[in-house]
């Protein structure tokens, strides 16, 4: 039952991910075509979600921006997942002074309020999508490193791995055949559950003007631009926020269903 639900949610998510890529083809207008004649128009037949202060179609810009908003977050998660896992394995499996050092480093990184660190890094590097992604990587990698390390340490003491070692299996063999597959599923689950957080952090950075730069279409940036027109054109904020909100919900619900499917005991949300 839970497996089925997770499968359904995963397929919906998959379709959504495809839609974000091909969605821009269905855009009714050119997302970058400004026409000052049509500035700040309320939703109407021609512009279903209205237009912004430069007369650009909001719907088209949302569709265009989906790719950046969603895939930049996926990219960040992919990077922190690999980097964190690698560091965690090195620390956990290698042990010794390297382990000590790496863990001290994660402690220092975790001593920062993470979003603040991201803002500072993005601010130092200067605004831009690449820099924002980099700062998010710095913000998120520690979780994965620590998790991977503790999972490796747990597994290392499992009987079947001890047995493999006694039977003379090579270090690399144990690592790739036993440890890596063993930690993969909880690590992946954490990554999936983290995507929505990263999407929100990314949107936060863009909202502060530290991410994608104008005139590129991106949800956080669109909301930020709409702030000045809160009184006259609230749809400039409403629709991109809605897109962001629904996307985050979709990732959250999928992540939860996946967790429930993998862990029968876990508490269901909602």
């Amino acid at each position, binding site marked *: 039952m839970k497996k089925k639900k997770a499968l359904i949610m995963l397929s919906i998510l998959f379709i959504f991910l495809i839609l974000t890529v091909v969605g821009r083809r269905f855009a009714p207008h050119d997302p970058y075509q400004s026409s000052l004649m049509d500035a700040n128009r309320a939703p109407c037949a021609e512009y279903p979600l209205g237009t912004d202060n430069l007369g650009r179609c909001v719907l088209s810009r949302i569709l265009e921006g989906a790719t950046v908003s969603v895939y930049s977050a996926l990219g960040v998660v992919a990077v922190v997942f690999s980097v964190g896992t690698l560091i965690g394995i090195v620390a956990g499996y290698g042990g010794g002074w390297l382990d000590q050092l790496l863990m*001290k*480093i994660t*402690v*220092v*990184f975790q*001593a*920062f*309020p*993470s*979003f*603040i*660190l991201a*803002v*500072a*890094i993005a*601010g*130092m*590097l*200067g*605004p831009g999508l690449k820099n924002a992604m980099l700062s998010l990587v710095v913000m998120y990698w520690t979780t994965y490193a620590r998790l991977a390390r503790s999972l490796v340490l747990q597994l290392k003491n499992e009987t079947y791995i001890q047995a493999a070692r006694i039977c003379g299996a090579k270090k690399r063999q144990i690592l790739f055949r036993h440890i890596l597959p063993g930690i993969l599923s909880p690590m992946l689950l954490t990554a999936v559950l983290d995507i*929505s957080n990263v999407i*929100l952090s990314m*949107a*936060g950075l863009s*909202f*502060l*003007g*530290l991410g994608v730069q104008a005139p590129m279409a991106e949800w*956080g940036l669109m*909301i*930020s631009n709409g*702030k000045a027109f*809160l*009184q006259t054109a*609230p749809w400039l*904020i409403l629709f991109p*926020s809605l897109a*962001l*909100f629904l996307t*985050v*919900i979709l990732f*959250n619900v999928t992540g939860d269903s996946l967790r429930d499917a993998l862990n029968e005991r876990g*508490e269901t*949300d*909602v």
Partner: protein
Amino acid sequence: MRLIKYSINKTGQLILIFLGITFLSFCLTYLAPSDPAEIQLNKTGVAPTEELLEKTREEMGLNRPFPVQYADWLKGILSGDMGTSLRNGKPVLDELRKALPVTLILTFFSMLVVTVLSVPLGIVCARFQDSFLDRTVRFITYLLASLPSFFLALLFLYLFSVKLRWFPVIASKNGSKGYIMPVLVLALSLSSWYIRQVRVVVLDELAKGYVAGERSRGVPEWQILFRHVLKNCMLPLLTLLGISFAGMLGGTTIVENIFSLQGLGKMAMDAISARDYPVIQAYVVWLALIFLAINFLIDLSYGWIDPRVRAGQEREA
């Protein structure tokens, strides 16, 4: 006596983390693509020649070896000297002094609202698990947790400033009343997470033997919940609150910028657009120190709350 020894050990760890934080913050300058000397020169309107740049670097102490620069900077921080702003040449400390209270007030009151809202609600939800109230709260908090805090802030602005006209759009022109909306926004977005945590922690606690014991002794239910269960949950609840402080401080940056509150977050964003690196550094160091201080206090409070921890601390020391 032993407790003091324990505190000293803890303080030792604290100092190590403090050094780590400052070191990392110091290293941040090296991420900057532009040369501080160049910014300094640009500000004075002098065309930067290679010679002049070299001279300015010398003046700003940028030519010295890395460890020396760090030690110098650290000494400065400890004596309250955060360097001078590249933007206006004034000490960073002055700006910090103005901004820090705003952020602290914002954080303090938000935390207060979070606690007052989340703890009783979480406890009641856990006690009446799967009741209508519990389901409703769970549903709302789930949605709220998926809502970016800046959208919540803008929604508040739209509702209470634009539509109802209760508050002006710019909070800082509003005296203490200007804090109300930012505090509510921060508190609400954090509560959505915290209520669920409280609920789960209390649910675990309610299954423990002493709760059944108290009931069998005829102790009134509210007394069990708020005098026994609450006290027993204090440790995990405080720990979670400490963790969530990071998110809260991050939230202040966004909220301050939306409501134009002149706190650290607003200061930082102004500094970022002016490439005023020392101010950005001050921002990250100070917020990290606040975070550190709070978690240190929470750590110390464990022993005060739980006699078993106290006994453990004494053994450890």
